[in-house]
């Protein structure tokens, strides 16, 4: 009797010790991973406030001069606004067009649908590269859209849409069809069903796509650079590359301050949208 109780106790103690150790190890690993992700970010937060930022992490000699210099730059602040305009503009186009297309593709079997989708997804990788720069430039020139946001938005949206449709279609596939059936019973038309039934359910996915699009556009240098002439129109991704000297040395005082201002809006958008909608990714290739 006593022997068995002791064994049981021992086992229980063992499990709880093991359990405890496992939790500590788990916490430790998670902390290390978190630190590894945080490590590169520290410079972004400290260097802008350092009088002499360098390519090393150092406790700043606190100053706001870098920002003061940046604010004197006639294009810097405006470029961040331009990035917002391009990011949100592209986002509206791809979310609206992408949702319509993805919904139709999810609910109607168009012949060769998957093949087309994969094909476009693959082609989007060619066109976002450097090789297609000349054709893209010439198309936009012949349409008379050089130095206009329309041209930039169309090219960006065209390149991003296949991925958006691909992800959203996965998403729509996973939405239970019973909701739409009952909506239809009440006499709702397809457009209304999409707007009032599908979109609200798919909102987390749409929010995810919206952010993903903004992130993509936010960092895009080549498309706005070649399609826009006027510096007043250039987004922050292009301006970031002007803070160099004639021989290509980085002016870290301006770059560190601008990097922070350049990153902050996307980070804020991201966390606000995340809080509001909570990203969910119902997708996955469905059978």
């Amino acid at each position: 009797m006593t022997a068995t109780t002791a064994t049981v106790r021992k086992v229980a103690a063992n499990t709880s010790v093991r359990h405890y150790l496992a939790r500590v190890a788990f916490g430790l690993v998670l902390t290390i991973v978190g630190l590894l992700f945080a490590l590169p970010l520290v410079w972004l937060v400290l260097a802008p406030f350092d009088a002499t930022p360098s390519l090393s992490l150092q406790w700043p000699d606190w100053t706001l001069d870098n920002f003061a210099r940046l604010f004197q730059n006639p294009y810097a602040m405006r470029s961040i606004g331009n990035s917002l305009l391009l990011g949100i503009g592209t986002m509206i186009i791809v979310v609206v067009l992408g949702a319509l297309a993805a919904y139709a593709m999810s609910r109607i079997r168009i012949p060769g649908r998957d093949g087309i989708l994969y094909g476009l997804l693959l082609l989007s990788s060619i066109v976002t590269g450097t090789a297609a720069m000349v054709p893209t430039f010439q198309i936009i020139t012949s349409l008379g859209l050089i130095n206009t946001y329309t041209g930039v938005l169309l090219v960006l949206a065209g390149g991003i849409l296949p991925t958006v449709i691909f992800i959203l279609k996965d998403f729509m596939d996973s939405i239970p069809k019973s909701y739409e059936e009952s909506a239809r019973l009440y006499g709702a038309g397809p457009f209304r069903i999409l707007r009032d039934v599908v979109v609200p359910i798919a909102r987390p996915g749409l929010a995810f796509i919206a952010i993903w699009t903004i992130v993509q556009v936010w960092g895009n240098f080549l498309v706005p650079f070649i399609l826009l002439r006027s510096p007043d129109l250039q987004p922050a991704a292009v301006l970031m590359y002007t803070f160099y000297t004639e021989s290509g040395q980085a002016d870290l005082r301006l770059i560190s301050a601008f990097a922070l201002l350049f990153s902050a809006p996307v980070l804020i958008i991201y966390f606000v949208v995340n809080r509001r909608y909570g990203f969910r990714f119902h997708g996955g290739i469905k059978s």
Partner: protein
Amino acid sequence: MSTSTTTTPAGSAIAPRRRRADDVAGLGTARAGIFVAPALILIGLFLLFPAIWTIWLGMTDYRLTGLQAASPEFVGLDNYVEALTDPSFWNSLWLTLVFVVASGIVGQTLIGFALAWSVRNIHGWVKALIEGLVLAAWVIPASVASFLWLVLMDRRSGTLNGLLGTDGYAWLIEHPMEAIILFNIWVGTAFSMQLFSSALSAVPPSQIESAKMVGASGWQQLRDVIIPNIKGHILTNTLLITLWTFNTFTPYLVTAGGPNGKTEILSVYIYETAIPGGQLGLGAAISLIMLLINLVIALAYIRVSRGRKKA
């Protein structure tokens, strides 16, 4: 691998029934066409058209400047021959495969999943903090992120050398591939993490409970309950990550393809051929080769997904 070799005659027979079952909103083919049309027009004009043009460029000796800019000549498949017989192309392809497998498929996917799995039951600030850090790395523009990594790995005053006491060690020269692989994991893990977080939260809790009841260990739960449930997500994720990693150019901002071409992955190779090298025709041809490789990979994934469907 339980892929059955029989083709599916049932597929076509099922299709009409499926259509009725799918088209719950009464969309109809015509209206579906209207829904799809605007996106397709945009894609056709600004994606398909330049892409086809690029493929044509790949069969010329076109350059942006010089005599060949004024009168490019049709050279047929010469560019393809030139690329495929160039050892630096094969070197670059090899580096790309290593990069994709290590940083994309293994790194981003596994770490992304592990993170999603680890924080799934945690709530409050710890979860928010971990997710926030990973996501911040993803959201920050590449040109900024590359600076952060230069600071981390700098030879003279880098953070890493400071922490490890390895003063003067040139990480980016001694271990360039490892550096860009870690960099890309850092940048891209958030996508997988998010995708798997949602996938995990969609796994029916009842299934996990019953697995626990029969005494399944954590690993067994993962293998028998979780993974079968999120297989579709794993495929979507792997497909997209592979494609993106294949095409990413951001490592260039950290190592500029160096030292001595040791991090010259295909996207960098194409850039260096097309822009500083000026050979746009050749660059276009290599782009198409890259697309074909991507196509093979995508087909492989689709095969896996089809096989799973039948099983």
